[in-house]
């Protein structure tokens, strides 16, 4: 490794690379901040630009977009209660409430700091433990993937609000919607009603626009303008994060970075899963779980560090085994292959300097993301002071343009509208939308891995308990369920005590 570091440094620290990193970071931040314009779409759009470049500047540009996209999604989540990208949905739960408390700048800063830490942490993991970690990840099979999904579904309880039942109803709806499209195991159509576009299933980014962005617009339409305006005269948003808050952020940031890396190295999973796992873990371990959902700094820090910790981790299986960790990284594979580089362990000996330059470059990307983020935060924070009558139409436009751009099809615009209407009805019924999102994220993956595992084992369910990894995930599921029950019992006890006190008064 050491013999490659010096030549790699020489290859990396050129003006061209620094320039491309910064362009990538800027493009990624802005793109991801716009609902519907996902990171993957941005990478696809800008991929052709890299074909005229050599491997390192090309990868630096794409990594800039990828990492900054991880952070950029949080901007709209915090400012307008609409995640710019699916993986920023968990950030929204606390980021927007904190912004509504007049601490927009602070919320954006927490997201930036946590994102940078997560990104650098995973870049270091890639640099020092890449090949070893990748070998472990490569052993995870269908049964283990299913257990990861089940563990993911336990999060529903954490994001259900006051009623788990309502959360479960929403989650079931999400799982049901995820069944729309071609059956992944048999190729037969399900719930497509003869509509040709439906057999592809529904795009998560499009559903997200309806569920979170359009419903907000509808909700705003119900209020008077006076209710919508934030009284900025009384708010002094200096963006200051107290020492106490920094202390509280430390543990969730570290834990979530580890979770982000662990999730990222498993091909097929991604930043969305990582941010939800981390958010839930942070809530379970927090001394102030009651603050989650109401502007908790721990919540923002956990979600953001996790989704950026995924960025380096997804590169681990790509660079060491040639398996892309997620969809965006799969696109980046093209940038390497176009330059004649076929990723895998053998590339570390034939083109070690290039491989290490890319890995070191990831650290650099995160540092530039931090520097640019510091300047952009001030700019982004001003969004909240834009009058609603101007901001709202702009959001609507971005939503429709974003929905159209996913597949360049008006059908997706209609899907976003349907989901907007659905979310509005659910809001009236007091059914939380976040479990629907979880159902959509995990539904297809859960179903496919469950059915495939049973196909492999000829219907024997013991496949889910055979490997050591399955047993570890089972233990985690049991711990998560126990924590949920304990939390609910505590809540009931507190409610009883409060009632008794009220009676005695």
């Amino acid at each position, binding site marked *: 490794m050491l013999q490659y570091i010096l030549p790699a440094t020489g290859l990396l620290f050129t003006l061209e690379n620094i320039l491309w990193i910064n362009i990538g970071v800027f493009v990624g931040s802005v793109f991801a901040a716009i609902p519907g314009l996902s990171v993957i779409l941005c990478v*696809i759009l800008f*991929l*052709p630009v890299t*074909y*005229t470049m050599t491997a390192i500047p090309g990868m630096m540009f794409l990594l800039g977009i990828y990492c900054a996209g991880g952070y950029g999604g949080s901007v709209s989540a915090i400012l307008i209660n609409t995640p710019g990208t699916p993986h920023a949905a968990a950030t929204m739960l606390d980021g927007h409430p904190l912004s509504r408390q007049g601490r927009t700048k602070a919320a954006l800063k927490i997201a930036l700091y946590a994102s940078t830490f997560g990104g650098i942490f995973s870049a270091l993991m890639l640099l020092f433990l890449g090949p070893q970690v990748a070998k472990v990840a*490569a*052993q*995870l*099979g*269908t049964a283990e993937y299913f257990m990861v999904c089940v563990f993911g579904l336990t999060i529903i309880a954490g994001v259900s609000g006051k009623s788990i039942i309502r959360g479960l109803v929403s989650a079931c709806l999400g799982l049901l919607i995820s069944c729309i499209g071609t*059956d*992944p*195991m*048999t*190729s037969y159509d399900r719930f497509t009603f003869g509509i*040709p*576009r439906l*057999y*592809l299933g529904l795009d998560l980014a499009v559903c997200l626009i309806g569920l979170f962005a359009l419903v907000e617009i509808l909700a705003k339409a119900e209020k008077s*303008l006076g209710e919508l305006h934030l009284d900025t005269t009384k708010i002094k948003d200096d963006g200051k994060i107290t020492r106490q808050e920094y202390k509280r952020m430390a543990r969730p940031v570290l834990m979530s970075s580890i979770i982000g890396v662990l999730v990222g190295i498993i*091909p*097929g999973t991604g930043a969305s899963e990582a941010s939800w796992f981390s958010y839930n873990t942070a809530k379970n371990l927090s001394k102030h779980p009651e603050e989650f959902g109401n502007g908790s700094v721990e919540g923002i820090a956990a979600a953001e560090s996790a989704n950026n910790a995924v960025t380096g981790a997804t590169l681990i299986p790509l660079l060491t*085994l*040639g*398996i*892309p960790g997620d*969809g965006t990284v*799969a*696109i980046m594979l*093209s940038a390497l*292959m*176009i330059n*004649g*580089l*076929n*990723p*895998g*362990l*053998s590339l570390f000996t034939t083109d070690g300097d290039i491989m290490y330059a890319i890995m070191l470059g990831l650290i650099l990307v995160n540092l530039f993301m931090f520097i640019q983020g510091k300047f952009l935060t001030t700019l982004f924070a001003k969004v909240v002071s834009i009058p*609603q*009558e*101007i901001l*709202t*139409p702009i959001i*609507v*436009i971005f939503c*429709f*343009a974003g929905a*159209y*751009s996913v*597949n*360049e*099809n*008006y059908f997706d*615009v209609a899907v976003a509208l349907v989901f907007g209407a659905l979310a509005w009805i659910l809001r009236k019924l007091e059914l939380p939308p976040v479990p629907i999102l979880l159902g959509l994220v995990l539904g297809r993956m859960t179903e*496919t891995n469950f059915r*495939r595992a049973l*196909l*492999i084992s*000829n219907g024997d369910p013991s496949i889910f308990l055979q490997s050591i990894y399955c047993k570890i995930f089972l233990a985690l599921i049991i711990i998560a369920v126990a924590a949920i029950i304990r939390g609910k019992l505590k809540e009931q006890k507190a409610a009883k005590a409060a009632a008794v006190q009220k009676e005695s008064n």
Partner: protein
Amino acid sequence: MKKRLLSLSLAMIMTVVLLASCGDSGSGSGKSASWKVTCPWAPSGVAAMVSQKAAAKSTQYSDTITLVAEAIAGDAATVNTWVMDTEANDPELVFVGEGLLSITSIIDPSKLQFSEDDFVFVENLYSSIFVLSAEASLNIKTIADLEAYVAQGQEISVAVNGAVGSEAFLAASLFGKMGAGDNLKLVAYQSAAEAAQAVAKGETQFAVSHQSQIQETYQQGSVSVVCAFDEKAIENGPFAGVEGVGQYGYPYFRNRCFIMARAGTDEETVAELKELYDNILADEEVVTWLQDTMLLEVDTMSQEDVDAHLENVKNIVNEYKDIVAG
């Protein structure tokens, strides 16, 4: 009230203008030098990568045509939309393979809102020879080894990309012809790379994949490569010498990617496009890249070759569809 009206008007005007301009981007006057090439498969897939490479080379070989590569995953849905949105002589090209024209057209024809008559063939972008890999511990390295293993009569599990894709039919035809159709279990994965990994993990005994997708796993010794789905042994690359199933009389087909223009496009224009693609595919750098990095072959074709290929695949699909689709 005024503010509400202002807000509403602003939103409506911007939406109409934006969506109208979005819709306009797909059409062209026919005189434009830019030809949009739509790949209806994953942007990270083999076809999308080769298309991007060809697009990057197009300006080198033509002053009048610039290829602009685009990938919109969606398979039949994307091609349906393309057919609906284009007319003869529009500067638009699309990729269609045997998967749509020979497999989906038989297994699930309702998904297709087009037929071969809606296209005019320009060129074949590449040929890919699929390989069958086996879990290393099975120690199956040749077709003879495979035949001996199959003769034992035990269950055979094969990882494939998609439930009814080309890989599934290649596996079904090979094991079906060996008389093991009843023992065959096809395990569908979401991508070719995932299927290739499944055999290395021991989830399945075999996998059918592109050569490039199994290369790294093979080099690490987790799998052995048993045979190639081609007439003869593989000639180049890390799998050179691997026997072709055709040598033993088993059915096979190569995976091909046909570049199509809209039916009715001027013959002259089609000839110009074909010449451009032929020049790009003869470029030494492209040939070396296809062969060494992508493990693909340049395989330019005529309309007759295309018809023969599609007919061959259709015959295989008709013969083995019961094994694949049940």
